[in-house]
């Protein structure tokens, strides 16, 4: 009983000891913040990675792909059908993307992905990242009339509006056609325009004034835009001229970072918009590969907020890509694919399915990986970073432990005579030790408790704090143009928090063990004689 009373009195009368736990407090707070932010980043990244990759990816090692995807899917269903919620086949090929901005040709190396517009959205979160609300419901490779998002639907209230997207769509294309004039179909492409617009889009009232590549148009000049004629899409008769005002090439969904760049202040500057044409160059299948190219019309942007993806991926209908590359078997009419994306039921274990499939298919021909496997190095790097930070911060708390040790030692020396008195009154050595251990524990609880509070409050208001810092220093703390997130993502994991707090308490106790032992071992007579 006396232990608690004395421990409490010592706490009340020796606030200097609290100073020694300030570093514990700060260490705990920092660790909580760092872990929350790292966890937030990891989660956000995994989310986006998972958004583009399905649960399990079944792919050929060769760019040639493998024939008969339906047959393969059937085989996969036989092996692991119980776990599978959906499948879709894709063709992934490196390609060059070429487009013009203000008369300059821009060439980018991209991953050119052929997707099945009907099933792709069911297997991954792909649709979620598109900019047209209707495309988010069901992907279509036809150019929309308009109505593309001008506000980032995944962004926050601080996302800058994307004013340019307001004009994107058919209206924009018509205006463009008017400036540039009809383009000879042959000039850009050897193949016939892939599609004609099947339904006549309602002409919308165009904006009063438009700017494009240095040109300005007023509304009055734009009255002549008439509805495009309805044409039979299967009509093979080749028009002498491709009319960009009324026709599109095959649709393409472009990674948003290919089409735009983000300014310092967080606004996006678009170089091209849905409605613009681009050209893609790919190697054909077969030996030796030849280079072919074709024109496409941008129908939407893809924004996963993973800059690695947003700056690399373009999507087209799989059939178009297969045709371009000559991947279609002329006899069966079935195209080769390079991978099958498999979506599992929610409760299925991806690794288990992967193992099943790996056992069933020859590893020389097919690579089978979960989405985690595929992003292994990236996720491992993030984990490594978190681990190193944790080790460093825990070192700081350990250093704080030495501060506690020193102060405790001083308190024990100061209390030498009292320890002698307690022993002369019959207090056991273990009891004396208990006083100082309880003292250390209470300081640990106070230090890490306050640290936890500070950490949690900091995490809860981290974006406000970042803004405040930016305002004070004039430096963006969290630059959205680098990270693509508008806000600092954070996730507080109770397990991590309790682990940190317990660790800090353990350090405080360990630091008090040595002084407590000294106190316990003091000879009572020497202690009583101590002046």
């Amino acid at each position, binding site marked *: *009983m*006396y232990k*608690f*009373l*004395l421990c409490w*009195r*010592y706490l009340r*009368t020796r606030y200097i000891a609290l100073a020694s736990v300030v570093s514990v407090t700060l260490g705990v707070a920092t660790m909580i913040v760092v872990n929350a932010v790292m966890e937030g980043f990891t989660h956000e990244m995994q989310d986006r990675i998972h958004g583009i990759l399905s649960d399990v990816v079944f792919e050929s090692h060769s760019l040639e792909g493998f024939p008969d995807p339906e047959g393969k899917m059937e085989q996969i269903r036989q092996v692991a059908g119980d776990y599978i919620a959906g499948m879709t086949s894709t063709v992934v090929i490196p390609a060059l993307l070429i487009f013009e901005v203000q008369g300059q040709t821009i060439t980018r190396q991209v991953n050119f992905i052929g997707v099945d517009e009907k099933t792709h959205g069911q297997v991954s979160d792909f649709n979620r990242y598109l900019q047209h609300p209707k495309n988010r419901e069901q992907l279509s490779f036809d150019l929309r009339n308009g109505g593309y998002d001008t506000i980032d639907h995944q962004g926050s209230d601080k996302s800058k509006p994307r004013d340019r997207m307001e004009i994107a769509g058919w209206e924009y294309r018509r205006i463009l056609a008017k400036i540039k004039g009809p383009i000879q179909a042959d000039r850009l492409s050897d193949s016939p325009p892939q599609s004609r617009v099947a339904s006549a889009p309602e002409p919308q009232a165009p904006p009063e004034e438009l700017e494009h590549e240095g040109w300005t148009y007023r509304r009055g000049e734009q009255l002549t835009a008439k509805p495009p004629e309805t044409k039979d899409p299967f009509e093979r008769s080749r028009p002498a001229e491709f009319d960009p005002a009324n026709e599109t090439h095959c649709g393409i969904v472009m990674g948003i970072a290919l089409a735009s760049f983000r300014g310092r202040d967080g606004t996006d500057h678009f170089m091209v918009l849905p409605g613009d044409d681009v050209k893609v160059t790919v190697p054909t299948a077969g030996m030796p590969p030849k280079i072919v190219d074709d024109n496409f019309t941008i129908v939407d942007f893809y924004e996963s907020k993973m800059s690695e993806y947003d700056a690399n991926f373009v999507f087209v209908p799989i059939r178009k890509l297969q045709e371009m590359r000559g991947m279609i078997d002329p006899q069966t009419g079935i195209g080769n694919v390079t991978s099958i994306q498999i979506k599992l039921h929610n409760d299925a274990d991806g690794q288990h399915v992967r193992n099943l499939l790996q056992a069933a298919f020859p590893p020389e021909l097919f690579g089978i990986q979960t989405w985690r496997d595929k992003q292994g190095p990236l996720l491992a790097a993030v984990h490594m970073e978190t681990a190193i930070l944790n080790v460093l911060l825990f070192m700081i708390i350990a250093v704080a432990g030495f501060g506690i040790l020193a102060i405790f030692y001083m308190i024990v020396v100061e209390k030498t*005579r*009292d320890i*002698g*008195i*307690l*022993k*002369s*009154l*019959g*207090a*056991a*050595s273990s*009891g004396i030790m208990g006083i100082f251990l309880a003292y250390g524990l209470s300081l640990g609880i106070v230090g890490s408790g306050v640290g936890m509070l500070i950490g949690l409050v900091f995490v809860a208001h981290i974006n406000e704090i970042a803004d405040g810092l930016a305002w004070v220093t004039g430096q963006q703390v969290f630059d959205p143009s680098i990270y693509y997130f508008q806000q600092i993502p954070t996730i507080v994991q109770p397990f991590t928090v309790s682990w940190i707090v317990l660790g800090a308490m353990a350090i405080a106790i360990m630091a008090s063990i040595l002084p407590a032992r000294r106190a316990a071992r003091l*000879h*009572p*007579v020497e202690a*009583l004689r101590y002046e």
Partner: protein
Amino acid sequence: MSNAPLVKTPTAAHDAARTHVKFDPQPGAALAPRAPFQATEAPQMAAQGLWKRYFKGRVEIPVLRGVELEVRRGEFVSIIGQSGSGKSTLLHLLCTLDVPDQGEIRFQGQRIDNVSARRRDQLRNKELGMIFQFYHLLPELTALENVLSPLLIAEGAWSYFRRRREHLERAKELLDRVGLSHRLKHRPRELSGGEMQRAAIARALVAGPEVLLADEPTGNLDTRTGEEILTILRSLNESQRLTVIMVTHDRAIAAQADRTVRLAQGQMEIA
């Protein structure tokens, strides 16, 4: 509660229980002579051939060289000796704060110089009270809490909490007895020397010990205050039959005891 004795007067059964700890249950053993353990005859506190030496580096300082002492129940004995003669050392041995190099100490017939640390803690806590020249109160605690501290030490949080009324009552009564009932909430540094020594006496008695060991209790006090303290000790000795062993270097103080012995050259002489 108010007229409960301040010092437990042990009954004969009580004493018998103490002396028969090593009772032999064999029938024949009852006939064996028990003379050395006769509770009524044996001194309450006895030291035989106590040696204690300190080392200063390599130099041996023999402080006690075969001290013999016997104190009967209810006796008031004073030990006088010059400063540095080893009076405190002897008292520390008697109250088991330290162990002798040689010799035996018996308390109510039982050896207490070679028992476990646990038992010695218990002896100091309950059966032997101590007061010191420098009072040795705990500065963080009030006078009342200081008086309660032996009980706090003896009991766990729960059992203390259950009996706290009883304990508080006893502590207050003792403080009243030593004339300190108006200073319950004062910290030691807010008390005078005499008041501190009174609190220390109350603390020494709170657990109901049978022997009080006093190490120069008046050494730091002026003559009048010293007299007052001595009066308290005397009255405790007379009314409660409390055994008092008091160390002092002051002949006048020592003279008030029933018996005075002198410690010189590490040995006892009759003064």
